[in-house]
């Protein structure tokens, strides 16, 4: 057996070696010659997945359940297929946005939500604490086992009570390492090369240790694999281990595969090594097969060692988890036992170190700082250099996490097998999956959805796994598990809502995922994203689409003067805050702002982020661009800005619509204005024309009145002649005034219509009688072609009379004296009566026909001699006929006379009897 002092010396020496490696790697990194920039180191660091649980627990698991230990490694192997897409996407997003932890990732995706970040952090602490306890248990148990080796010779093993103190010391040492290499400095990228180097080394050590023990047990203690399995096959209690799927059944397998798939990506430490510590995206491709290969190798001897343990020890004499050490010790191979111990130690320390560092970053950034920054009395925001504070918080967090782990181990962990504790954590970590995977493939996921999903999933996890596990440890009454709270069977934590028949883990996974995914999708669908959420969602989901622009977002081409940037920021967040922000920046980079004339790309990016807090990311970029000199804003860059700001687009779309509406309204106004002006112009023209038309008869009246007044000696004939003219012109004036007033009244809709059933032929005869003198004077023949009877039309009798008289007098005026011939014809057409007044006058040119019914549009140009009339007659006719629901038109050809026709509808549908008379 190895001497106590030797074991302690080796363990201590090993830890010192780790410190040395980390120190050396950090120095190399500072010097710019990174040792971790290799896909092999990267893959080894990912193997931090294999913890003390793997090292001791897999064998323990295999010893009880055969190949049950495998799904935990099949999951990660399967998920490696997805790496090139899923993980690479997470990686790209994280690099672009400088994500520092998984909590940061989720918070960032859902609108940089502090609430989400804090929630994930707390959940992670709760989840990981038992896991850390698990490592402490593994290390201290193995240590004590090694020291208590003499007891094995009797085939009995009694656990010494001292191992709890050992755990304490292990915890202290690990905390020191984490504090030294996990929080050496505060960096925007949160990468820790020294730590990564040490972890990679540890992965190598644990693999070699495992293989060494495996080879020793298989080939030295036993006569090779064949011998081992042959012996096992003869034992009826061992043989089933490698012939059946074990205790969980296939359903349990699927559950474990799924859980480990989530765990290998989303455990805080896995996220830390895979994403945060990643140096080069291309390393992912090689790690995607190196890491599964590692898993394969480290699991190669699990089953042989487990079988060997079962063959060598009587059940219950030795804990199956301790076979790794117990077999070499029983074989009296102290060196191999120490190798195994070192392997277990390295597995445990690796996990604890990375986990605590990852968690401390989360606790510091997502939990403590947001709270401290809100406490106004601390005036934290005004302090220049916060880096010391940040380091202190992180170191404090590490101590706290280690303490929690130790306390959990001390009070609870002693009672439970390693595997159970580990699976508890896995099931909890799986709760992150919907929010993360949904977040990077589905833009619709909202902050509320993610919060609801996570909260729901964790509550179910708490109820169906954690509380029962506490109950089993005696911390809660066990009746709660067996009979349900308050005896309600439906709420039994292991058979929720009556779902029985599954193992506890599958049961918990099923219900927690139902709650998680259901709430995530459901709440996301009914809630709205804020602007920042939408921008982030687009950035995350479409990270590959603008991969080029994404990397450029970090670097501003061109340069800006420091002064300009300062002025810019001061404008938005005030001089004081701007000064503080830039001072903080300078302090974190050891720059003297006074000496800065030109800002580098980093400072510009910093400025952009400062501004983004105040005015939004998209606007910030535009603002910074405005002060950057020598920078050509490319079209793709502009597109990216637009891309990022889908909200801005939406907003501007609304603005555009508003402005379009305004434009439409103003163009309507313009049109209305034009119409009004046109109306005004027409009115003006109308008045001018009316005035002219009024002045003409007035001129004659005045002239002849004055002539008569000035010449009392005129002959009676002359006097009569002149007075006759005065009378005629007065009549003309009166007629004109009446027409203008009629027209004005009709147009204003104030005409007093007396609608009735009118006998049109009778009316026509009357009109002919009234105009007969006119025709006689002008020597024009008038013919009537009227049916004996027509159904009455619906009209105002007097106005309709005016229309007919007007048409008749026009016809008489335009017909040639002597040979003139005017015909009035009426015919019943469908729906009404058509009246046609035709003459054999000069006719109206086609181009003028449209105008004759307009005001003052006499076609006098076409005839020799000015026609009598005001130019209002036909305009009034048209309005009258149209008021009756009819229409008026002219049919004519130049030189072939004209037909003025109008249609007026019947008063009612004509009775057939009347129509046929």
């Amino acid at each position, binding site marked *: 057996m190895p001497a106590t002092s030797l074991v302690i010396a080796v363990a201590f020496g090993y830890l010192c070696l780790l410190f040395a490696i980390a120190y050396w790697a950090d120095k190399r990194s500072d010097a710019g010659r990174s040792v971790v920039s290799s896909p092999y180191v990267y893959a080894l660091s990912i193997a931090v997945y294999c913890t003390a649980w793997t090292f001791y627990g897999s064998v323990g698991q295999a010893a009880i359940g055969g190949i049950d230990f495998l799904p935990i490694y099949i999951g990660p192997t399967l998920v490696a297929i997805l790496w090139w897409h899923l993980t690479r996407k997470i990686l790209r997003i994280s690099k672009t946005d400088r994500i520092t932890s998984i909590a940061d990732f989720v918070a960032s995706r859902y609108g940089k939500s502090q609430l989400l970040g804090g929630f994930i952090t707390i959940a992670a602490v709760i989840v990981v604490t038992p896991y850390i306890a698990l490592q402490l248990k593994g290390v201290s148990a193995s240590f004590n086992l090694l020291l208590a080796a003499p007891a094995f010779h009797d085939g009995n093993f009694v656990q010494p009570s001292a191992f709890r103190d050992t755990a304490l010391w292990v915890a202290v040492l690990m905390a020191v390492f984490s504090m030294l290499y996990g929080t050496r400095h505060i960096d925007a990228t949160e990468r820790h090369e020294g730590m990564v180097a040490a972890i990679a080394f540890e992965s190598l050590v644990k693999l070699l240790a495992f293989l060494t023990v495996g080879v020793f047990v298989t080939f030295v203690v036993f006569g090779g694999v064949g011998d081992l399995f042959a012996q096992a096959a003869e034992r009826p209690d061992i043989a089933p281990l490698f012939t059946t799927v074990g205790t969980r059944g296939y359903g349990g397998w699927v559950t474990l595969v799924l859980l480990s798939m989530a765990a290998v990506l989303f455990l805080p430490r896995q996220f830390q090594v895979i994403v945060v510590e990643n140096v080069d995206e291309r390393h992912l491709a090689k790690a995607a097969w190196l890491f599964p290969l590692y898993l394969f190798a480290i699991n190669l001897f699990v089953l042989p060692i487990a079988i060997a343990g079962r063959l060598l020890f009587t059940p219950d004499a030795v804990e199956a988890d301790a076979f790794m050490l117990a077999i070499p010790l029983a074989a009296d191979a102290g060196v191999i036992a120490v190798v195994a111990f070192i392997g277990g130690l390295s597995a445990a320390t690796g996990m604890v170190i990375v986990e605590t560092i990852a968690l401390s970053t989360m606790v510091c950034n997502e939990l403590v700082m947001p709270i401290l920054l809100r406490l106004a009395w601390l005036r934290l925001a005004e302090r220049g250099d916060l880096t010391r504070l940040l380091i202190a918080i992180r170191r404090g967090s590490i101590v706290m996490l280690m303490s929690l782990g130790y306390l959990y181990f001390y009070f609870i962990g002693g009672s439970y097998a390693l595997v159970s504790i580990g699976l508890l954590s896995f099931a909890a970590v799986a709760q992150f999956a919907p929010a993360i995977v949904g977040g990077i493939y589905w833009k619709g996921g909202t902050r509320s959805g993610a919060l609801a999903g996570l909260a729901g999933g964790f509550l179910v996890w708490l109820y169906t796994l954690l509380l029962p596990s506490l109950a089993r440890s005696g911390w809660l009454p066990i009746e709660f598990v067996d009979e349900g709270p308050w005896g309600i069977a439906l709420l039994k934590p292991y058979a929720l809502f009556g779902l029985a028949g599954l193992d506890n883990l599958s049961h918990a996974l099923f219900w927690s995922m139902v709650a998680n995914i259901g709430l995530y999708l459901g709440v996301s669908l009914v809630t709205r994203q804020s602007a920042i959420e939408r921008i982030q969602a687009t950035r995350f989901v479409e990270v590959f689409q603008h991969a080029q622009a994404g990397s450029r977002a970090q670097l501003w081409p061109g340069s800006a003067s420091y002064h300009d940037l300062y002025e810019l920021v001061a404008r938005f967040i005030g001089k004081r805050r701007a000064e503080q922000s830039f001072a903080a920046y300078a302090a974190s980079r050891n720059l003297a702002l006074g000496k800065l004339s030109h800002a580098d790309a980093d400072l510009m990016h910093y400025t952009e982020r400062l501004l983004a807090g105040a005015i939004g990311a998209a606007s910030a970029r535009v603002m910074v661009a405005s002060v950057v000199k020598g920078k050509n804003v490319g079209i793709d860059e502009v597109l990216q800005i637009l891309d990022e700001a889908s909200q801005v687009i939406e907003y501007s779309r609304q603005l555009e619509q508003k402005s379009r509406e305004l434009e439409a309204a103003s163009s309507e106004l313009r049109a209305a204005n034009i119409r009004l002006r046109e109306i005004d112009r027409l009115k003006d023209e109308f008045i*001018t024309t009316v*005035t*002219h038309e009024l*002045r*003409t008869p*007035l*001129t*004659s*009246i*005045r*002239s*002849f009145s*004055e*002539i008569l007044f*000035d*010449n009392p000696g005129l002959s009676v004939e002359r006097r009569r002649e002149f007075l006759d*003219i005065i009378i*005629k*012109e007065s009549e003309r004036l009166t007629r004109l005034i009446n027409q203008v007033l009629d027209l004005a009244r009709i147009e204003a809709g104030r005409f007093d219509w007396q609608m009735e059933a009118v006998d049109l032929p009778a009316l026509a005869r009357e009109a002919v009688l009234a105009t007969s003198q006119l025709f006689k004077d002008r020597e024009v023949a008038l013919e009537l072609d009227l049916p004996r009877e027509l159904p009455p039309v619906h009209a105002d009798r007097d106005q309709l009379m005016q229309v007919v008289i007007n048409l008749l007098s026009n016809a008489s005026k335009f017909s040639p004296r002597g040979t003139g011939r005017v015909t009035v014809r009426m015919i019943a057409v469908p729906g009404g009566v058509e009246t046609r007044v035709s003459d054999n006058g000069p006719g109206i040119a086609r181009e003028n026909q449209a105008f004759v019914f307009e005001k003052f549009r006499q076609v*006098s*140009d076409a*005839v*020799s*001699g*000015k026609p009598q009339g005001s130019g209002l007659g036909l305009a009034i006719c048209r309005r009258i006929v149209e008021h009756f629901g009819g229409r008026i038109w002219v049919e004519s050809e130049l030189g072939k006379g004209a037909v003025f026709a109008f249609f007026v509808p019947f008063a009612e549908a004509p009775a057939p009897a009347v129509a046929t008379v």
Partner: protein
Amino acid sequence: MKSVLVVDDEPNIVLSLEFLMKQAGYEVRVARDGDAALAAFRDRAPDLVLLDVMMPGKSGYELCQTIRANPAWDRTKVVMLTAKIREVEREKGIALGADEYVTKPFSTRELVDTVRRLVGDGDC
């Protein structure tokens, strides 16, 4: 004996002008439109023309322009008669070479005075 040409398309106005001018002692000729007026001019340029602006065919403005364009008719005084009362119309008439611009309805005495002022008494 001074001669006056009356150009208007309103028969009653022509009648009154003819009466007034004859009474004032002028020789009066009448034209019902622009073409008739030009024919009368070519026959013998009058001493004065009373010209209506709004006429079918050639307007009074056009006729005035034609008269002024012919140096042979330089002597003839032009008096525009119009119902257009806007100041711009008056200015247009004067600009086109009219000697007077009289708006309708006019005072017969003033019109006769205007004609006299332009060409002197008809009898001498």
